């Protein structure tokens, strides 16, 4: 998986116009063609592409993702690892908000089917799914940070101030909430349709025939079953959220992987692009694995192993 991903990124990067050497050299220092050729061979850029890829792969396997072209003293691995924390924090908070709001609104919609509440939530979900992250990020930034001044417009901590959880949360809430919109909308839609289907099942009627209170019929008998397909959706929305996180991080200047990646692309920092994508890919695979494990935990019909 990761191998195929790294190969694809490598090829795509080299297909884009521009020469990596242009990004490497300082345009203010004139260099002769001979000097350039010498630099090329020194960096291995004169070798054929497959050889270059294999050289990168060999190093990558042993844990060396190379050095940033723009920041020569920084190993890519350190650079990427230092950005994982903020991104996980942002995406984790967004996911938490999305799961809670998505499941709650989905359940309410299903139980109060065809009422004005259901209609309102469904419209919210439709808008949420249809609005791209860069648009909702900018609109959100304008309304909540610029107009209402409820939250700071960017960064993770107030510069110069001493670290505090409150300050972090204050910076976190707006980007996390905006990032969660699309996920919450998707989860809500799946939750609603899944619960509607389960509510028609015979075992729900059996539960009522036993004298189970209506609240527990929904919250225990129906919800546990209805959550199964939703867990899968939650897993797959994480991949989607990574795309959104890249936009949100650039808009809110959040020092995470997304911002690192965008900056690397802008400056053609090839090793950083390669390294960052690889780590993101690894994260997605781990998340999918966790999703499958969760699935097995909540559904007794699936045995692990």
């Amino acid at each position, binding site marked *: 998986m990761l191998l195929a991903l790294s190969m694809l990124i490598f090829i795509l990067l080299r297909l884009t116009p521009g020469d990596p050497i242009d990004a490497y050299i300082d345009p203010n220092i004139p260099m002769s063609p001979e000097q350039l050729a010498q630099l090329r061979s020194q960096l291995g850029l004169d070798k054929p592409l497959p050889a270059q890829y294999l050289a990168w792969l060999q190093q990558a396997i042993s844990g060396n993702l190379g050095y940033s072209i723009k920041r020569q003293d920084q190993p890519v691995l350190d650079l990427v690892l230092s950005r994982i924390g903020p991104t996980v924090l942002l995406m984790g908070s967004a996911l938490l908000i999305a799961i809670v709001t998505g499941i709650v609104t989905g359940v309410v919609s299903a139980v109060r089917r065809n009422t004005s509440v259901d209609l309102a939530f469904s419209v919210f979900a439709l808008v949420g799914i249809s609005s791209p992250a860069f648009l909702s990020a900018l609109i959100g930034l304008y309304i909540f940070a610029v107009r209402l001044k409820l939250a700071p417009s960017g960064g993770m901590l107030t510069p110069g101030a001493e670290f505090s959880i409150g300050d972090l949360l204050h910076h976190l809430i707006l980007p996390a909430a905006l990032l969660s919109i699309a996920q919450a909308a998707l989860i809500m839609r799946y939750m609603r349709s899944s619960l509607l289907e389960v509510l028609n099942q*015979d*075992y729900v009627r059996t*539960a009522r*025939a*036993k*004298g189970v209170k209506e609240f527990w019929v929904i919250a225990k008998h129906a919800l546990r*079953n209805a959550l199964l397909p939703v867990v899968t959706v939650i897993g797959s929305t994480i991949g989607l959220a990574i795309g959104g996180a890249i936009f949100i991080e650039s808009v809110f200047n959040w020092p995470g992987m997304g911002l690192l990646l965008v900056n690397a692309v802008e400056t053609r920092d090839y090793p950083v692009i390669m390294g960052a994508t690889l780590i993101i890919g690894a994260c997605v695979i781990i998340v999918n694995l966790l999703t499958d494990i969760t699935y097995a935990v909540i*559904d007794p*019909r699936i045995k692990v192993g």
Partner: protein
Amino acid sequence: MDKRLEPILDIHGLRTIFRTRGGEITAVNGLDLAVAAGETVALVGESGSGKSVTSLSVMRLLTRNVGSIAAGSIRFKSKDGAVRDLVTLDEEQMRRIRGNEIGMVFQEPMSSLNPVFTVGDQIAEPIRIHRGADRKSAMDVAVALLDQVGIPDARRRAGQYPHELSGGMRQRATIAMALACDPTLLIADEPTTALDVTIQAQILDLLLKLQRERGMGMLFVTHNLGVVAEIAHRVAVMYAGRIVEEGPVAEVFRNPRHPYTLGLLASMPRLGDATRMKQAGEQLAAIPGVVPSLADMPDGCAFSPRCLYAIDACRQAVPPLLAVNAMHRSRCIRWQEVSR
């Protein structure tokens, strides 16, 4: 019903309607039916005759906003001796009766158990709800119940999930669940229809045994007349939302007085029939025509379009239930001419 016994369930003039896109349809129309303690009453009919709707009406489990009870009363005698009309109870009062005083067994043992909870948990649930038992003692009762319904190795089975049990065992488990709180009335809605024939007989024997041991009243809903002969004391035959004939099982089977019952009995194959009929060149009798749509009922007797005995008077007014004798009634104005 034996006149000396006071009924525990007494349905009077029940009318259940469904709202559909095509308008309102009447699924059960003016039904009278009583079940005494220790008595098994079979409600027989084709699909769409209203027999399952009747059982769901008693439990007040009709799909909300779709089906509702429009008229009639369902008087039920509680364990404490109080007689109440289930139609007038609020949802919370009704909930205390479901699974506690009236147990219900459904048709599909595959889908009527919740796949994500263990069998033991599901049987213990009504005990915890209605008796306030703690988890452990409720589970002990559940294991004892599983043992009673003939599941070997009950303790281990209680810890298993429904998918780990066979169809017959699941139906035994749903019976254990329905009986968990010692109900005085058991409603069994086609409990054997989804099972293999050999298992069907076992489940019928089990229900019969439990009903005798516990002295419960049982309302047994089925489309299978063969099953009725084995299990019920009295039978009520339903057609298009109405009871068309009712009486003691032996009497109705020997001496049917409604053309529909007659047709049903004639279309039931008996052992040895195949050989005899092949020799005589006969075919299994079938009732001509189809059940009328509830949205488009014929005038008068609903069975008249399919009836060989029908005369003009049959098409003018719905016939009343006429007494054939003290125990036996038929909704046919020509019942005296109808016989095998």
